[in-house]
């Protein structure tokens, strides 16, 4: 059957619909037999949560992850690679990441196209970069080194931002496209981040989506945000907002069948609530990708848009 949507290259496999693996749900995921278990195709695990403190091990969280891995594909998603930092790459951190990846055998290893620290200090935030040729060269050289060290193609996520730079030379999507092309890495497209940044900086989210080369899109994130005065904050503590679902539909039309997941990091609800969001994403994707159902898709998707 010919799926609707553009043809994709085989750089990244479509894993279906996933969820972020979070500690409050460990028991439920482990204690339910896989056959009766969550209707989730895969889980994404935050890499640093399974590395342990300095001098320690991954401890119980790593044991849980290894157990989950027996039944589900895993994607490792880091927050501290700091690929855009001016500091040298942290090979001690990379060695821990490599050990974790060797142990878990994830489908992808991802992080963020940002910096998280400088001058030896870690700010534990996904900080924005100026979109310049100088920064592209800096990133590409470092991504090559990381990919060589890990022995795998990396995937990088667009971050939500509250700052842009006067000296940026291009738009964010042009910057990401250029980095991925030159570094031969993938894009983790967070459509919530696109929406948040588009609102905060006044660009078109559709233009952003269309500017990312579809063959480079490995994965899509869906998350919630909060309104703070006249701008949006990427809080990951809310259900996915309706404008973000709409943007997700556009993303599927743009990129075809891409592994997608629901990301919730705070105010974490019952597993069933997140699973329902994942099922909603699955249905949207199914409807957008089925050519013979395109009319039905329009109606169903319109209904889903109206659903609370």
């Amino acid at each position, binding site marked *: 059957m010919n799926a609707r949507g553009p043809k994709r290259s085989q750089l990244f496999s479509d894993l279906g619909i996933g969820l972020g693996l979070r500690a409050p749900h460990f028991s439920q995921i482990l204690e339910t037999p896989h056959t009766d278990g969550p209707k989730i195709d895969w889980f994404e695990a935050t890499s*640093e949560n399974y*590395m*342990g*403190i*300095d*001098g*320690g*091990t*991954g*401890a*119980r969280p790593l*044991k849980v992850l290894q157990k989950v891995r027996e039944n589900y594909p895993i994607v490792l998603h880091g927050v*501290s*690679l*700091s690929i*855009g*930092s*001016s500091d040298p790459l*942290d090979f001690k*951190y990379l060695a821990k990441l490599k050990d974790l990846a060797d142990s878990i055998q994830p489908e992808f290893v991802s992080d963020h196209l940002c*910096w*998280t*620290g*400088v*001058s*030896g*200090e*870690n*700010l*534990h*935030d996904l*900080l924005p*970069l*100026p979109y*310049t040729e*100088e*920064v592209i060269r*800096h990133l590409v050289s470092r991504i090559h080194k990381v990919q060589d060290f890990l022995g795998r193609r990396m995937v990088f996520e667009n971050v939500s931002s*509250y*700052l*842009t*730079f*006067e*000296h940026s030379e291009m738009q964010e999507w042009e910057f990401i496209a250029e980095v991925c092309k030159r570094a031969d890495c993938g894009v983790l497209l967070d459509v919530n981040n696109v929406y948040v940044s588009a609102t*905060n*900086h*006044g660009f078109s989210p559709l233009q952003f989506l269309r500017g990312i080369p579809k063959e480079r899109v490995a994965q899509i994130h869906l998350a919630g945000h909060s309104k*703070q*005065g*006249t*701008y949006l*904050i990427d809080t990951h503590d809310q259900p996915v907002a309706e404008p973000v679902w709409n943007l997700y539909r556009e993303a599927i039309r743009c990129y075809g069948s891409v592994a997608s997941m629901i990301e919730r990091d705070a105010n974490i609800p019952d597993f069933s609530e997140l699973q329902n969001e994942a099922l909603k994403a699955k249905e949207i994707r199914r409807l957008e990708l089925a050519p013979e159902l395109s009319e039905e898709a329009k109606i169903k998707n319109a209904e889903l848009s109206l659903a609370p």
Partner: protein
Amino acid sequence: MQNSPSLLEVQNWLRWIITDPRGVECALSRDEVVEKLDPKRYVEPHPKLLSSFIETPNASRNERLSVYAEAYFSRLLEVLENDFATTRRALGDEFPRVCGAYLELHPSRSPNIENIGARFPTFLRTYSGTSEVPYIHDIADLEWGKIEAFYAPDSEKINLDSLRETPESAWPEATFETDPSVRLMSFDYPIDLLCEIEDDGKFESARKALKKERIFVLIQKQNDWPVVKRVEENQYLVLSSIREGRNLSDILSRLSGLSEVNESTSSEVMAWFSQWIQSGLISAVRFLGH
């Protein structure tokens, strides 16, 4: 035309504004900094880069920078609150201020945010702002000890059959290893009791009633979770001696130097060893020549 700032300049400027404990508005107002723990942290780096950020009608530069500055402190504070829950309760509303002072001197230098509390107990030991709670560093020590125990590597269980076959003559020279999760601590106040209380009202009355009392505490990971137990002074002494690498004969002599050791004490000590080996607290026994 002015040159664009380098990436390093941009990042160092942002690091300064985000981590300045006074907040963005105050930092940019260039207020004089008096008697701060780390005055260097308050000095704006050159070149000054505020004008490098785009301002829009929906949010000023200061507002945009404040999103990052507020997130920096709240994220680290959240981790410290979780890791030092009893320390937080004991300090009450002062806790965020104490954490601010700590972060000023000990900003995160690790890619893993879970490491942020590693130096907090030591900081509290010398920080003058918590002198009203003389045991506060002990509580923090105990709480960080539990985190270290949680992340400690697992050890193999000792093969009890092979131990039983060891000739009696080999035992006096035997040395021992404790499980990597084991932490031994002694405190001047019974602060372990405070850590067990969940109810806020009961905590406050227990805190007020806390009297000096020397206690000895053992933390050990069991079934993946850290467990805190009181131990007797002699047990503490024996376990400390084990961790110093002393052999069984030395340990018993050391004990006899401190208290009267008779046959019944010796058999009590041997019972402790047996129990510790079976529970996994002792994770290896080494015999001379093996």
